[in-house]
């Protein structure tokens, strides 16, 4: 479904991604692992269209996304939970969720029950401004907002950051549930190795802007991976 092919990405003159390739398939979770600053976020932002790339291709179902604005990618089913939450601070929680309606048909313009089931706190705080929420609450809101857009490709950049353990477990269940539904591809960036290990079907490990290991769950050497993300 998603194919990232030999992507290069530059910040000014500095190169953050070198010939990075990755793929994600409906019904599977692809985990992207790596130390700080290796380029995980850059890759995710490139997929969502938030960062222009300088080479390579990003295809969704065979169509090249490169050159498409982020909102056009959303129309094709890409949703991102960005690192740093990026909720709309002055919109209420409810309005934050409603922004996700932008590409939906009228009939689909409702918040899926799953969002409130997963994050009951959002339901309690519908009228509170997003920016007033605690860090973890904002993270939950960001995930909820992405789900509202009914994505076919869900990109999660460290979604568990700052979230309390019980909800991390719930998120894990939710991801597992979405995977079981079989029509959504999920790309997950995670530092919390055990969490990623439990969920991932495929792995990509990065180092200094490059993919240094990849493979599926079974074919993966846990120790080697741990080594790559150790200090």
């Amino acid at each position: 479904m998603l194919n990232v092919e030999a992507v290069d990405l530059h910040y000014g003159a500095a190169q953050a991604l070198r010939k990075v390739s990755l793929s994600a398939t409906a019904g599977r979770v692809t985990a992207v692992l790596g130390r700080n600053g290796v380029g995980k976020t850059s890759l995710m932002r490139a997929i969502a269209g938030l960062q222009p790339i300088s080479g390579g291709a990003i295809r969704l179902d065979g169509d090249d996304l490169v050159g498409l604005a982020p909102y056009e990618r959303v129309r094709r089913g890409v949703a991102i939970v960005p690192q740093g939450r990026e909720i709309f601070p002055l919109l209420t929680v409810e309005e934050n969720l409603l922004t996700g309606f932008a590409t939906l048909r009228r009939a689909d313009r409702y918040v899926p029950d799953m969002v409130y089931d997963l994050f009951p706190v959002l339901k309690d705080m519908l009228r509170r401004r997003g920016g007033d929420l605690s860090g973890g609450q904002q993270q939950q809101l960001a995930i909820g907002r992405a789900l509202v857009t009914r994505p076919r490709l869900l990109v999660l950049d460290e979604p568990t950051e700052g979230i309390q353990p019980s909800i991390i477990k719930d998120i894990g269940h939710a991801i597992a549930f979405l995977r079981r539904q079989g029509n959504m591809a999920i790309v997950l960036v995670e530092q919390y190795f055990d969490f990623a290990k439990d969920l991932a079907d495929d792995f990509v490990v990065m180092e200094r802007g490059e993919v240094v290991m990849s493979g599926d769950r079974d074919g993966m050497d846990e120790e080697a991976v741990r080594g790559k993300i150790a200090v």
Partner: protein
Amino acid sequence: MITSFLIDSLDRRGRIVVGLLVALALLVPAGNLLVPEGSAFHVSTYQLTLFGKYLTYALLALSVDLVWGYCGILSLGHGAFFALGGYAMGMYLMRQIGARGVYADPVLPDFMVFLNWKELPWFWHGFDMAWYALLMVILVPGLLALLFGWLSFRSRVTGVYLSIITQALTYALLLAFFRNDMGFGGNNGLTDFKDIVGFPIQAPGTRAALFAASALMLALGFVVASAVVRSKLGKVLVAIRDAESRTRFIGYRVEHYKLFVWTLSAVMAGVAGALYVPQVGIINPSEFDPAASIEAVIWVAVGGRGTLVGPLIGAVAVNFGKTWFTGALPEVWLYALGALFVVVTLFLPRGIVGLWDRVVSRRTKPAKEMDGSGRRAGEAA
């Protein structure tokens, strides 16, 4: 110690700028006084006064850059300090006229005579003495800035709120100085000056001296400004600009820092105003016009905010453009000037100096380091 502190503060570019200014202070007056007319090196009096004026504008721009470029305080009212310095100088020059005014009153300036003032208002006393006037050139803008800054920075007025109240300040002063009742000559302001510290103000030598003084003052201002921004204090200022509250959390008293540069900058603006007035021959409330302050900000932006050199270049370039356009294209020059501003913002995000840096860095160190402006490059469209 202070001097070594000041000299050390200059980087290579700074030394070039200061060197140029000092050279200008010597050569231009010489070109005016010594080189005969008709020579290619002759500087006409017209050019001399024109560039003298630009230099004072450059000092004003420098002072704006100090607060805006380095501390993020966008002042839309710096013209007020400039004008106050100018008025202090103007009052001195008025008193110098003495009994040579049209009504031949030994004490009262002409405008007071014909509006039937009987005696000199208290705030005019002392301005017959040069040292007092010079003190006021520094004190009046300085104290106003201190008061205004003390109130505002302590109350944590920031961003556009601060910008708009600086505008309110200069606007209020504009209206106040307009009033004839205030005793500053109303709209006509102060003019028809005769001499300055005993020298006839229109004499070639005096003009040349004023030019040299402006160039040297600008050089001094530049040295002080670079000393400030290159010190650790300067780094704190930038930190405040980027993340004010974070700066507080590591223990810096933001309000003190702001107050320091703000006041310093106001004094610089006041000095610029004081040098400006004898060269243009008039000071009037229109210098308080908010539009004038906005223009000063624009000089800075055109030259390159946060670069110290930029404001000098911007002030001279824009004003030169204005001089030239208003003469050459009197009917359509606003199109040219307006377009200039738009083009500079769009294509030279860091002003003329930014462009220069780009050209130079491309030549000297190809693509090694990236610049910070890439940060927001990922604009959606």
